């Protein structure tokens, strides 16, 4: 019998997190992410894990950070206003270098917005939502299977880099059910929790970076007597009010991600071999953009698609190379225009960059993107 089954994106996300070793979930119900919490509530105790429904979104973020510090891989999920409320402690996780994954099933904003309607309006919030300077990793799946895969990736990256990772889903993929075949556990590569490489007697410092610039912070309860704080700290973990330490601490947070960017930043290309034009899309919108590309090809337009799987760190190299190759780029996104600015920046004037935006509760229809492709190609003939 085939392993293929019908599964919802949110459900696949929960399955992926579980497969990646998540054993703790703290959350607060909010549409359209609630199925992730419901899935975790059901599945976690079956594997000896724990689920706790907290009093609010801030507490949900705090409880998962506490669980992570005590050694459990931890997940939270939310949408819209909930993600706004979590920002303070997302910053804490970045500063104190605590592995955690935050799923954001995007809905229409600002504020309460349109609770059940799809949007991709949190792209810049994912990057800059909390205060201060820090890098961010954000991934955006386009299918139910990829919701599983990116959940595994998100957990792995959070552990490997000891950083918060945002799984930037959208309602399209979150609520979509489709045929999916999930991989066996043996097919997955799971990044384990980093362990201290020295004993206390050997002069262990919890925030001393390893070769990859990521510190091997001990889990609580192992006798290391470490101190964790959201204040800027040195390698000992203790706060230091000193310009040099402050600069070096912020430098390292950025560099540990920057030196691994080629491994983190994934894009996928479609019909690009002979393409003269390109559509840049991500998440659920890319499904529609791809159909539009196929339609445009039928009409003789040599167009392809570049799909951003990793939203942050942004695919600067790929877009720069793309802009050097094609005559024009069309960015499609379900918002007023956010990632288009990044594409323009990376394209650096090498080719025109046009925006196909939508922000009216509904998803793109292929014709709308096709029209954008035709205008782009027509305008440059």
């Amino acid at each position, binding site marked *: 019998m085939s392993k293929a089954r019908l599964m919802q994106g949110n459900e696949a996300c929960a399955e992926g997190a579980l497969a990646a070793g998540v054993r703790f979930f703290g959350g607060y119900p909010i549409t359209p992410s609630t199925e992730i919490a419901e899935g975790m509530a059901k599945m976690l105790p079956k594997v000896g894990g724990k689920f706790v429904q907290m009093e609010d979104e801030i507490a949900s973020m705090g409880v998962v950070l506490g669980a992570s*510090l005590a050694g459990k891989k931890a997940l939270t999920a939310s949408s819209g206003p909930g993600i706004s409320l979590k920002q303070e402690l997302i910053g804490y996780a970045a500063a104190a270098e605590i592995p955690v994954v935050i799923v954001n099933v995007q809905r229409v904003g600002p504020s309460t917005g349109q609770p059940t309607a799809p949007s991709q309006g949190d792209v810049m919030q994912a990057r800059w939502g909390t205060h201060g300077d820090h890098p961010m990793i954000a991934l955006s799946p386009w299918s139910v299977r990829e919701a599983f895969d990116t959940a595994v990736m998100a957990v792995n990256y959070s552990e490997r880099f000891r950083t918060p990772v945002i799984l930037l889903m959208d309602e399209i993929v979150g609520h979509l059910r489709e045929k999916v075949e999930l991989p066996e556990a043996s097919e997955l590569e799971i990044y384990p929790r980093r362990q201290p490489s020295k004993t206390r007697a050997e002069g262990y410092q919890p925030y001393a970076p390893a070769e990859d610039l990521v510190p091997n912070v001990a889990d609580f309860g192992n006798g290391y007597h470490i101190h964790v704080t959201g204040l800027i700290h040195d390698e000992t973990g203790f706060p230091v009010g000193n310009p040099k330490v402050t600069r070096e601490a912020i430098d390292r947070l950025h560099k540990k991600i920057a030196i691994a960017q080629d491994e983190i930043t994934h894009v996928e290309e479609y019909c690009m071999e002979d393409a003269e034009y390109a559509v840049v899309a991500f998440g659920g919108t890319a499904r529609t953009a791809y159909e539009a590309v196929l339609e445009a090809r039928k009409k003789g337009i040599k167009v392809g698609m570049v799909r951003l799987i990793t939203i942050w760190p942004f695919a600067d190299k790929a877009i720069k190379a793309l802009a050097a190759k094609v005559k024009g780029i069309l960015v499609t996104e379900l918002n007023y225009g956010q990632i288009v600015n990044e594409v323009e920046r990376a394209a650096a004037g090498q080719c025109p960059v046009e925006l196909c935006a939508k922000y009216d509760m509904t998803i793109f229809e292929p014709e709308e993107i096709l029209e954008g492709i035709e205008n782009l190609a027509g305008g440059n003939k």
Partner: protein
Amino acid sequence: MERSFEQYFRQNRLPHLWCPGCGNGIATKAIVQAIEKKGLDRDKTIIVSGIGCSSRASGYMDFDTLHTAHGRAIPFATGIKLANPELNVVVITGDGDCTAIGGNHFIHGCRRNVDLTVVLFNNNIYGMTGGQASPMTPTGKKATTAPYGAVDPTFDACKLAEAAGATYVARSTAYHVQHLTDMIANGFDNKGFSFIEAMVQCPTAYGRKNKMSDPVELMKWMRDNAVMKAAWDKLPEDKKVGDKFPIGLLYQDTEVDYATAYEHVIEVAGGAGK
């Protein structure tokens, strides 16, 4: 004189940043003496704090320590306890941290009866930021944000904890050092949410604004107004006036704690031993 409590401090992190005459050091010492008294395993005892004067205590204490964000100590502590129930989790918080910005977490921590020992250093003021009014600044007392006297009625954090579901509620003061230590130590014995309000003097931010800048005067005020619970209960209502307040074990109950209750969930779901 034996000073065995010193081993519980990170000597290289001292001296502390608290002002001369501050009561936070007394309360912090009471916590480690309670830990010593009960023989808690230091490697399995985690100190979690929020933000404010009180919450700097964690940095001086030689355990795994966590200095969280303002008001959020209890959610972090909840995560630690549930992730690894064999750990003893102690929360150090302040009156602003616990009852203002962290108020929602406080009442829900009590409601869940998570097995934590929460010690609130009540100095009646936001000391770290220079003396703004907190929900526990007595009505009429002055603060930089209450220059004509605080308009707001105050929270009684102990009554709040009891009503919200805490299973051990006690109060003591920095004057009653041994009593305070006992109240905390007995809190460790309770498998559930234990809440201890430690009244501490703040001569700098609170005292100065309210003509009580001498720490000795503040401690005398504690001595003269604190009434042991047994005596308080016998006191006629017309004598429970002025600044008088009860100290001691105020409430105790036996209810299953959250982590134990969740073990049952795991059993029902078939995940026991996994």
